[in-house]
Each structure stands twice: as structure tokens, then as C-alpha cells.
């Protein structure tokens, strides 16, 4: 029988003050709430879509109407599409300098630290406000390497239209699930990245998504194409102030990793607690390529988030490192999916989750090793920390192995802070309070160390672990 610690550990909730500051809603244009063919046509017209994109949107709407709401995850009963405004255009166009961004919007991004981060250590930044990108810039030296980093809609109307048409929603087709179809119908904003063969983008690019309007949805699309033997680190951040009506985020990320290339995609998700975050992320990886996902999920009322990797090329690799922190009123269903579809591929999933104050944190995963993936390896490890009995933490992994020439391992642990570890640290001179703080900090450490320094600091600020031991 395990030893159980009877002391209670108190972990403070995330300090959201900076994220909760609301701007006055002053849209240049917004569609009516709900989802109809007329609304989809309005969005398409407003965005001046090419015909094929308008038809794609309408087809996606048809699919949306036919697909069922998922019955296997957290409840999304509180989300009523009739009340969601799917397109809100702020009163500004896209700028390449912060000085041209309207004052209130610029102040919001200043508070979030985006321009500072750009100055100190990013190769380029895109900033989306509600449904439109308001700022996009890339360093000249990166641009000179042939790297394209722009908003998706500009790219759609320029020389890259063909490339976008060949890739847009090919990895995540609208038939994938109901909210992928919704995304296909009403998507707006997002970024397009192309890294040419042999180019290594040494410092990261970042897109930041801010949703300010109450009752709105954000449906940005991020399309990343990295050619052969190239490298990219892309960072995605997001936040929204809290309202007492449901907001919806159904974005989509598609990443094409070329042969011998490596892409790292880092996310700090910090939506407000009225947000339904039904996001889809997927990468396909060519021969000898690598996709690395680093994911921190802290916000949202309800999340469905499982970045998927398709290991399509021989000896391609995937790594997923994730942390989920669910507090009061949150149900965060997160994890990862991987399909091994070529020989000699490997995947490694490491996740940590913390549930407190009635929060629900679920880990869900799927590892499929196809008949073609002889010699593949996969390991999945998830650890969950329950900080009180009002919370909940479920672990729902699945493995499907269709070849004998594979090695697959999975382990999961759930529990509270180990009394033995506390005892050991106290025997080394630490107070009980410090010992527990160290253990909980160490629990999140493997994830923090995968992030760029400034984001690791942000994550630590977000978690803001305050340990208060009640001794004796």
C-alpha cells in the first residue's frame, strides 16, 4: 500500500490580471451572430476571397451541418453557435510598424509584452486582434534568406496563392470533425510561413492571437511549409479577457515538415475562462524530418486540443512535451496524436497535468503504428497531480499497433505529492513548505526548460505556484 501524505498543499490559481483588461469593442464590421450560408457568403465577400475559397467555405458549411457534436469529450453544451459572432473586423488594416497600430490595440499588445519580445528575440511577429491580423513584420535578414512570413490572406492573393491552394486544409480536411468544418467555413486571419530549402531560421517567429469582443469566435489559420533540410521555431500565444458569455476559438494549424527538416511549434494557451477552445493542429513530416510540439494549456473554459503528427517519411520523428493546468470551472482535455506511417519512425510524448480547485484535466492520446511502419518506436509518459478531491484527472490513452516490428511503451501515473520526496528534501535541510514548492516546481520543470527563456518565465508567472504548507 502506498504511503499517503496527510498535509495539504495549496497552489494558487493563475494571476490573469494582465490578460483580463478589456478594450472598448469598436468594430469596423461584424457579421450577425449565428451560422448561416448568408453569413459565410458575407465573410467571403468582406475578405474578397477568390472563387475557390468561397466555394470551399460553402462546402465546409454543408459538412459542418452534417457532422455530429463529439460525444466523447468534455461537455460543450454551453456553446450555442446561434450566439457566436464568427467575424469581427477591428477598425484598422494590417501594419508593418507598431506606430501605425491604433493606440488601444497597441497598448493591449504592449501589456502582453509582444513588441518587447519582438525587439529582444524574435525574427518576426504577427499579431491578430479579433478576426484580423493588425500587425505583421519580419526581420530583413530573415526575409533576405527567402523566408516568407505574412498574414495568410495577403499570401492568398499574391504569388503564393497556388502554394496555399495546394496545402490549405489538406492536412485537416473539413470532414475531420465538426469544428474543422466550422473553421473551413468561417476562417479568418492567421499566418503563412514558408522556409526555403536549406534555410535555418535561428530565432523564432511568433504569432499572437487576441480576442477582445465578447461572444465572438476566432478562427485563424496558420499554414507553415518548411522545405528540405531547414529549421524553424514558431511560437503561438493567445489570450482574451473574461466575459460572462461564451467565446469560441476554433483555429487550425497545418505544418508541412520537409525531408531532413526540423520544426518546433511552441504554444502558451491562455484564453479566458469563458472560452471554448476547439483547436486543431496537425503536422506531416517527411523523410528524416522532426516535429517538436511544446504546449502549455492554462486558459479556456473547455479545451479539446491534441496536436497530431503524421510521420509520413522514413525515420521521421515527433516529440510532444505538454503541461496542462486546470483550475476552477475549467475542463481541459488535452494530449497528442501520432500516426506512424513509414518505417523507422519514432515518437515521444511527455505530459504533465495539474488539477486544482474543482478543475478537470484529462490526458487523451492516440498512437497508431501502421502496417508500413516497421521498425518504429513510440513512448508515451503522462503524469498527473491532483491537488484536491474536488478536482478530476482522467487519463485516456489508446495504442493501435499493426505490425510486429515495433516497440511501443506507455506509462501513466496519477497521485499527489510524494511524502517520501518531501521527507528526503527535509532531511537535507529544507522546510516542508520549501520542499513541496520545489517538488511542484520540479513537476513542471521538464516543460519549462523546453520553452525559450522569456516564455518559460511567462509560464512560471502563469502557474505562480505559491506553496503554503500546513505543518502539524
Amino acid at each position, binding site marked *: *500500500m*502506498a504511503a*499517503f501524505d496527510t498535509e495539504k498543499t495549496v497552489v494558487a490559481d493563475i494571476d490573469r490580471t494582465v490578460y483580463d483588461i478589456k478594450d472598448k469593442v469598436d468594430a469596423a464590421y461584424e457579421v450577425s451572430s449565428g451560422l448561416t450560408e448568408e453569413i459565410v457568403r458575407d465573410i467571403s465577400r468582406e475578405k474578397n476571397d477568390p472563387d475557390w475559397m468561397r466555394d470551399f467555405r460553402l462546402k465546409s458549411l454543408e459538412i459542418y451541418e452534417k457532422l455530429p457534436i463529439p*460525444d*466523447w469529450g468534455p461537455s460543450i453544451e454551453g456553446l450555442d453557435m446561434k450566439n457566436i459572432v464568427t467575424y469581427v473586423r477591428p477598425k484598422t488594416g494590417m501594419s508593418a510598424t507598431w506606430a501605425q497600430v491604433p493606440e488601444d490595440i497597441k497598448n493591449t499588445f504592449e501589456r502582453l509584452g509582444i513588441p518587447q519580445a519582438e525587439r529582444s528575440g524574435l525574427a518576426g511577429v504577427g499579431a491578430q486582434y479579433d478576426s484580423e491580423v493588425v500587425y505583421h513584420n519580419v526581420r530583413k535578414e530573415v526575409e533576405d534568406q527567402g523566408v516568407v512570413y505574412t498574414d495568410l490572406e495577403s499570401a492568398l492573393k499574391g504569388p503564393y496563392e497556388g502554394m496555399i491552394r495546394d496545402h490549405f486544409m489538406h492536412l485537416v480536411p473539413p470532414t475531420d470533425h465538426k469544428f474543422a468544418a466550422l473553421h473551413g467555413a468561417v476562417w479568418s486571419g492567421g499566418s503563412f510561413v514558408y522556409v526555403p530549402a536549406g534555410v535555418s531560421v535561428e530565432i523564432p517567429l511568433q504569432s499572437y492571437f487576441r480576442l477582445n469582443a465578447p461572444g465572438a469566435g476566432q478562427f485563424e489559420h496558420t499554414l507553415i511549409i518548411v522545405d528540405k533540410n531547414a529549421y524553424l521555431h514558431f511560437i503561438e500565444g493567445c489570450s482574451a479577457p473574461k466575459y460572462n458569455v461564451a467565446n469560441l476559438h476554433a483555429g487550425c494549424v497545418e505544418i508541412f515538415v520537409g525531408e531532413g527538416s526540423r520544426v518546433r511549434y511552441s504554444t502558451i494557451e491562455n484564453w479566458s475562462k469563458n472560452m471554448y477552445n476547439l483547436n486543431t493542429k496537425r503536422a506531416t513530416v517527411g523523410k528524416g524530418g522532426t516535429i517538436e510540439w511544446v504546449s502549455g494549456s492554462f486558459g479556456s473554459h473547455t479545451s479539446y486540443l491534441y496536436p497530431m503528427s503524421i510521420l509520413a517519411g522514413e525515420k521521421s520523428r515527433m516529440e510532444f512535451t505538454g503541461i496542462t493546468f486546470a483550475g476552477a470551472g475549467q475542463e481541459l482535455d488535452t494530449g497528442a496524436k501520432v500516426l506512424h506511417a513509414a518505417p523507422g519512425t519514432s515518437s515521444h510524448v511527455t505530459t504533465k497535468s495539474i488539477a486544482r480547485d474543482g478543475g478537470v484535466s484529462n490526458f*487523451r492520446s*492516440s498512437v*497508431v503504428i501502421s*502496417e508500413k511502419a*516497421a521498425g518504429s518506436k513510440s513512448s508515451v509518459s503522462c503524469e*498527473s497531480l*491532483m*491537488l*484536491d*478531491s474536488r*478536482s*478530476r*484527472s*482522467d*487519463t*485516456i*490513452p*489508446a*495504442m*493501435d*499497433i*499493426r*505490425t*510486429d*516490428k*515495433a*516497440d*511501443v*511503451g*506507455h*506509462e*501513466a*501515473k*496519477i*497521485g*499527489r505529492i510524494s511524502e517520501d520526496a518531501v521527507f528526503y528534501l527535509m532531511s537535507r535541510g529544507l522546510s516542508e513548505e520549501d520542499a513541496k514548492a520545489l517538488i511542484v516546481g520540479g513537476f513542471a520543470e521538464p516543460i519549462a526548460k523546453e520553452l525559450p527563456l522569456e516564455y518559460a518565465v511567462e509560464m512560471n508567472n502563469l502557474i505562480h505556484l505559491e506553496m503554503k504548507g500546513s505543518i502539524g
Partner: protein
Amino acid sequence: MEKVNAIPSLTWHRLRVNEASEKGAFPPVPRRGWGAGDVTLVKVPRGITVDEDEPIACEELESGLGQYGDRLISENANSRWAVTVEKKIKNPLIIEDSVAAGCACVTCGSVYAVAGSALKIIHIFRGDEGVSQSLTRIYLEEGAQVELCEIQLLGAAVSRHCGVAAFGQAGSQFRYTRMELGGAVTVCGAKAVLSARSAAFDMACAYMGTGDEYLDFNDVANHIGRETGSEMHVFGVLGGTADKILRGTIDFRPGAGRSVGHESESVILMSPGVRNRTVPLILCGEEEVEGQHAASAGRLDEDALYYLNARGISPEEARRLMIEAGFRPVADRIPDAKLRDEVLEELGRRIASL
């Protein structure tokens, strides 16, 4: 279609693991019904009486097969046995179900173990063709101990469905051993409800799937009482184009403080055509628990094979030894030496045919 072996918490439907597939459906009952297979009480130890009157406490217990599967077996049962145990019984009760072409053994068994009593049951399933279905429901009062050992030695043309349901009061212990060596279709589901303090569930399962066999397992430990414990450990070998799904769930309910649950599965894959699906769940609504699961799947360890070859053991023998080593801890739980030897002999034959 009604669901069989449904998982307690759903996941993506496209994985097709949420319930048994059509391959695992109950075979339709022929219009004229099945011929009855033989159900034999091989050994009835002194101190118990076997009759057909199911204790009321057992009637509502649900197995891992789920309500639909339990109902079908219960309604179509052509054999029933029931035991009430009032003291500690040393020798095992041995029951044997034998099927043949056109025949079915549809057996409903129940055990009511009063406080402090103990009973071991060995249930053997034999036959080369036909239908084998069993549902065993066990109610354990405080401190009762019941050990159920199910040994399946069926041929490759038998359809098998097997449900086990146990409800344990404080301090009770349910020890369950399942050895599945044959059957065209094998669908098994065990559920133990650990309702009160210190109730324990200890399950060990070994299976072998060859040819185009379909194996589907759904085992659940519901921790309700404090300080309850579950151990669920599975070893398996898959060859040919065998298709297997194992669902194992440890469910810590609020109030199950200081409970511990461990589950594991180790699968050896012997052929490129196999399909191995594993879904090990931990559902946790209680802070003060320890839950752990581990699963591994792969080929026989090549280093170990090389080592054995270097010691003069032929590759075939080395392979047999390594597979048998996985089955051995499960076989060692069979509480009858003669039967244990028979199982190991049969196992050796079946390993040779892999």
C-alpha cells in the same frame, strides 16, 4: 447494435476501441436453439452445496461485458449454478463447460460469500466447435475471499463471451485469474466494485491469439471505498493475423481516499499481420490515491534470444521458453497442480504452432 465491452469513458470513435467490434458480437441464437453443451461439476468440495438459485444480491451485478451482454447470457442460459459460502473452504470447486459442433454452453454462475468465508473456483472451458458463454457474479461480504480461475482451452472454431462481476464489501478480496488460449472469438469483461474500506481486486490474465482470432477484453476496477486496492496485470502473445483490444480501467471515485490501483499489459507480437490495441484508463476523482498503468508491446527481446542461443538452446526452444515465462506467473495461480500441468502442456503445443 447494442454495445458489448463498452469503455467507461469514450475516446475517438475512429480508433474503434470504444466497444467490441462487430467481430465480437454475440452469435445469433438459431431458430431451434442450440444443443446444450455439457456442464460438469468436476469437484465439489465439502462444506458447500451447489444449486441453481441465484442469490438476490448477485442478480444486479454488472460484468465488464455490460448490461446487454449480461442480459443475453442470463436470458439464454442453459445451465445455472449458485453457491453460498459460509466458511473457509480449502479445496477448489471445479466446473467444466464442454462444447461441440452445434452446441452451446451458456452458463450463469453466482457466488455469495458471507463474511469471513473463502472459496476457490476453477472454471474450465473446453471444446473445438460451438458457442461458449458464461457469466459469473460474485458478492463478497466483509472479509470474504473468493478466487476465480477461468481456463479457456477452446479450439479455433469456438465463439466465447465471458462476463465476470464482483462486488466487495470491506476487507474482501477477489482474486481473478484468466487464461485464454484459444477460441475464434474471445470477448471477456470483468468488473470489480470495491465498495468499502480495504476491499481488494487482484487480476492476472494471459492470452494467446493466433490465426485470425479476435480477442476483446474490458476489465474495470471501481474504487469506491477508502484504502481499496486493485492490481490488474495482463500478458499476451499475438501471432498470425490476430486482432486484440484490451481495455483496462482503474476508476477512483470521490471518497476512495488512500486507494491504490496498478495495471499493466505486456504483449509479444509474433507476426507482421497482428493488430494490437490497448486502452489503459485511469479515471480519477479523488486526490489521495496512487494510480499507475504501463503498457508495452513489441517483439521478443533479441538480446535475450541471442543469449539463450549462445547457451546452446535452439531458437525454437528459446522462443518457447521466453513466451512460457510470460504465462508462467498466471499459470502458477491455478490452484490445482494437475490442471496447471495440463495447461502448461497445452500452452507448449500452442506456442509451437505460432
